[in-house]
């Protein structure tokens, strides 16, 4: 399929669109637009169905469908085991456990904090919630510090 959409739509289009989606979601559902709760509802489908909210499973499916549509317009999908600079640095057998462990930190931390980059970082920040502002400042500072540390530890490879 030819590439119709650029690999990276400019920030001044993508950012305001995300802002409008956050507001639209509030206006329709009276809820924050957060992604971690969609994961939990999918996970609870397998573990304890009474704790899975149906609409959040549909929301998760929507995220995947929207991403697939954009990928097709970008000329994809391209299947592979590459993972950017990290994939270039470590073999796949090491990469997968690292990513699984990172995923556990992401899920555990977001659930503990009550939100992730979307729930706290965009929705919560837009509603000027101090809890979300504190969480956003914390995960930004932590992620930047650890990324810079990784750069030092890997001798500039990452």
């Amino acid at each position, binding site marked *: 399929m030819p590439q119709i*959409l650029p690999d*990276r739509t400019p*920030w*001044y289009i993508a*950012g305001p669109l995300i*802002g*409008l*989606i956050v507001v639209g*979601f*509030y*206006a*329709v*559902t009276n809820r*924050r*637009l957060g*992604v971690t709760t969609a994961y939990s509802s*999918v*996970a609870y489908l397998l573990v304890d169905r009474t704790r899975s909210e149906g609409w959040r499973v*549909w*929301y998760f499916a*929507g995220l995947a*469908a*929207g*991403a*697939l549509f*954009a*990928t097709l*317009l970008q000329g994809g*999908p391209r299947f592979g*085991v590459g*993972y*950017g600079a990290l994939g270039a640095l470590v073999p796949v057998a090491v*990469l*997968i456990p690292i*990513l699984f462990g*990172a*995923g556990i*930190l*992401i899920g*555990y931390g977001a*659930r*503990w*904090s009550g939100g*992730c*980059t979307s729930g706290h970082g*965009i*929705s919560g920040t*837009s*509603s*000027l*919630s*101090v809890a979300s502002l*504190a969480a956003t400042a914390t*995960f*930004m500072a*932590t*992620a*930047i510090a650890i*990324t810079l540390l990784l750069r030092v530890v890997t001798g500039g490879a*990452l």
Partner: protein
Amino acid sequence: MKAAGFGFGAAFGFVITAAGLNNYDVIHRMLLLQELEVYLIMASAVAVAAPLLWVLEHWHFKTALGGPLIIERGPVRRDNVLGAAVFGAGWALAGACPGPAIGMAVAGSVPALAVMGGLMTGVLARDRVAGQIQPPEHAKMPLEAAQATAAGGASA
């Protein structure tokens, strides 16, 4: 609600992927402070959403499916900050957060499935740990008994 969930999810997933946020190198360069694009996406999203939400709230807007608009703004709790630090560590390692991880997998990245699997495991693990933290005694009583206990405690 299901249709709204699917529709807004699709819109959000589309923009995340169209903007290239489902790419380890993009997020990694952002966190290395080498490029500002992703910060500008977050800032412009908030710059658009914040005033609109303020207006809707001050109009006492009635949402389509959820009654009058109520925006929760709790105080900062310890959990918000400690959890965010753990989340930030995982985000730095994977170069992906929950939404973009879905976009990565859909675009064909097999390793992104490991991030998604880990994420679900982490969410379940946190719920299990949180479930084992016992609430204080008065929180388990019926409301009136709890109020009586609290009042008795205050007068004693």
